[in-house]
């Protein structure tokens, strides 16, 4: 190594070492441990007894068997697909719609409106979940039930969350969808504000309506942000469980059709009753693989490379 390279190396290691340490400590180590545990009979946190008991692909085989024959696990998979799919659409398109709507109104009402949508994200998870717990509660104390009964639409309270599958699904989708919308909204709003004002003025002068401006100029110019929000939300929906955990725990929603794969992993590893860390780790690995594949597909489908304009210059 010559002198300059060594200096560069010193500087690089200085700036990168905290980051590398973080990655190793909080990402690499857990990842390796998870993969390892998925190949052991680890259960009930009995480290001494099971951590070294190597079982090969046994946990994966069990998962596959459950996938074929266990109605509970089948429900978990189905719930995950429906939950991630629909919530993702709500998150991304809802965020885009909110950003576009606020783009065309004047700044003051727009920012209060945006703040309103940030509330679900700002309030503590337990408090926020509790609000919807009371709202959707299956007895007559539930806000929704009492309103509908007062209006005379229904005569008996409906146990919304225990109505499977769509009642349970609707609630977890609704509660998480409301939280996620604000993320897309913020990203899209800042993206829209980056677009030169002249482009919009030019379109206005040429006779474009707000809808035409949105469709032909604003949306195409925020493609990259769209992709980002889509991928990000996909991954976070795949792995999120705090709200769902509480709603299931409080018996608001049906356990089978209110449990996603992420919550299943959590319950299996840390839940009440018998804990099966080996199985949970295998499910977590599968979940990660799905996430990686899904991420790649969104990048490919939306033709990420094509969207990146080649800058002028050859470097």
């Amino acid at each position, binding site marked *: 190594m010559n002198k300059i390279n060594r200096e560069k190396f010193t500087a690089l290691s200085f700036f990168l070492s905290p980051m590398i340490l973080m990655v190793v400590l909080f990402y690499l180590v857990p990842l390796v441990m998870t993969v390892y545990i998925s190949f052991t009979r680890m259960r009930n946190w009995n480290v001494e007894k099971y951590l070294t008991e190597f079982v090969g692909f046994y946990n994966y085989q069990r998962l596959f068997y459950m996938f074929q024959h266990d109605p509970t696990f089948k429900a978990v998979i189905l719930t995950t697909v429906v939950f991630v799919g629909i919530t993702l659409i709500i998150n991304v398109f809802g965020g885009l719609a909110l950003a576009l709507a606020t783009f065309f109104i004047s700044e003051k009402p727009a920012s209060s409106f945006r703040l309103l949508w940030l509330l679900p994200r700002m309030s503590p998870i337990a408090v926020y979940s509790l609000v919807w717990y009371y709202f959707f509660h299956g007895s007559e104390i539930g806000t929704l039930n009492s309103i509908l009964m007062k209006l005379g639409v229904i005569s008996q309270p409906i146990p919304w969350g225990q109505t499977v599958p769509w009642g349970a699904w609707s609630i977890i989708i609704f509660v998480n969808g409301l939280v996620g919308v604000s993320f897309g909204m913020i990203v899209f709003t800042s993206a829209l504000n980056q677009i030169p004002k*002249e482009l919009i*003025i030019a379109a*206005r*002068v040429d006779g474009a309506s707000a809808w035409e401006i949105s469709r032909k100029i604003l949306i195409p110019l925020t493609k990259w942000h769209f992709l980002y929000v889509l991928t990000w939300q996909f991954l976070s929906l795949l792995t999120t469980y705090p709200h769902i955990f509480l709603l299931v725990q409080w018996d608001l929603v049906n356990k089978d059709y209110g449990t996603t794969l992420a919550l299943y992993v959590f319950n299996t590893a840390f839940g009440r009753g018998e804990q099966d860390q080996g199985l949970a780790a295998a499910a977590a690995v599968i979940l990660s693989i799905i996430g990686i594949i899904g991420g790649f597909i969104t990048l490919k489908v939306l033709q990420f490379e094509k969207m990146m*304009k080649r800058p002028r210059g050859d470097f």
Partner: protein
Amino acid sequence: MVKIILKEITKKFGDFTALDNINLEIDDREFMALLGPSGSGKSTLLYTIAGIYKPTSGRIYFDDRDVTEIPPKDRNVGLVFQNWALYPHMKVFDNIAFPLELRKVPKQEIEKKVREVAKMLHIENLLDRYPWQLSGGQQQRVAIARALVKEPDVLLLDEPLSNLDALLRIEVRAELKRLQKELGITAVYVTHDQAEALAMADRIAVIREGKILQVGTPDDVYYKPKYKFVGGFLGNPPMNFVEAEVENGYLRVYESRIPVPAQYKGLIEKLDIKEVLLGFRPHDAEVVKGISEGLVGEVYSFEPLGREQIVTVSVNSGAFVKVFAPEGEHFTFGEKVTVKIREDRIVLFDKKTEKALEFLGE
């Protein structure tokens, strides 16, 4: 192809008055330049004509039609921006076609019209490219094509050439002027470049701080500035100004004395004015070696410009005038010279209001 009439237009942004009681008529097929320094309200006035801004008070007419309340899209104006504002995700063809698509013009006709206008602006071979694949000059042509394709009644241009290099600017401005006359379109052209305004416009409106100071042909505003500001803003180098005292038929400038110009004799007597600013253009004087009748001073510096040179003469400590001299003449620093001014080109301004004497009554 309309006459634009602006009546007492005022535009406020909050407390700030960007346009202050603007009255202006722009004739059918006229090329009007709005000239003024940065922040004077040129763009605001242009956007008000386009309908992007609504005037706080006043009316706008296109011919007899009051368009004050009419949205931009129904005014049939073409707008070209300083940064061209091409849609980056559309190819050149689609950029130009965009206004027609919004009007739901049939596909075939769009194709025909886009090709026509592209041919007119010499960009037929660029239709398949994206804006970022074009040079600045080409992007600018695309922007003009997009404004022209919808056959607007009025073409509004906001400093469209200021992002181009000097040579290209001169080339394009000639072409733009020809195009405007060929199409017979009414054009309003915003610029802070006085040379551009002089070269292109039929008439120039000089704006400062939201007020129109003077409207006139390039000759008018160049030779008969209504305000010191106008004389100082136009021309390169701009008009010279020196303070002068009126003394029975003469103007005293420091040590020198020159007769009151014939065109001002009556006026000065009538106004009974004692102190004036004497203005003249660098081309309207010559530098003569030695001391004689005229503005006496010393050579401060000289800058050869090829065919001619600019001689800066110090007429008193701190008071300089610039005069053009032929290339052959040689000067030395500190040399005593006399500046002889063409009498009929002298403009006298009131010292207090900085307004030319002949307009003082207005």
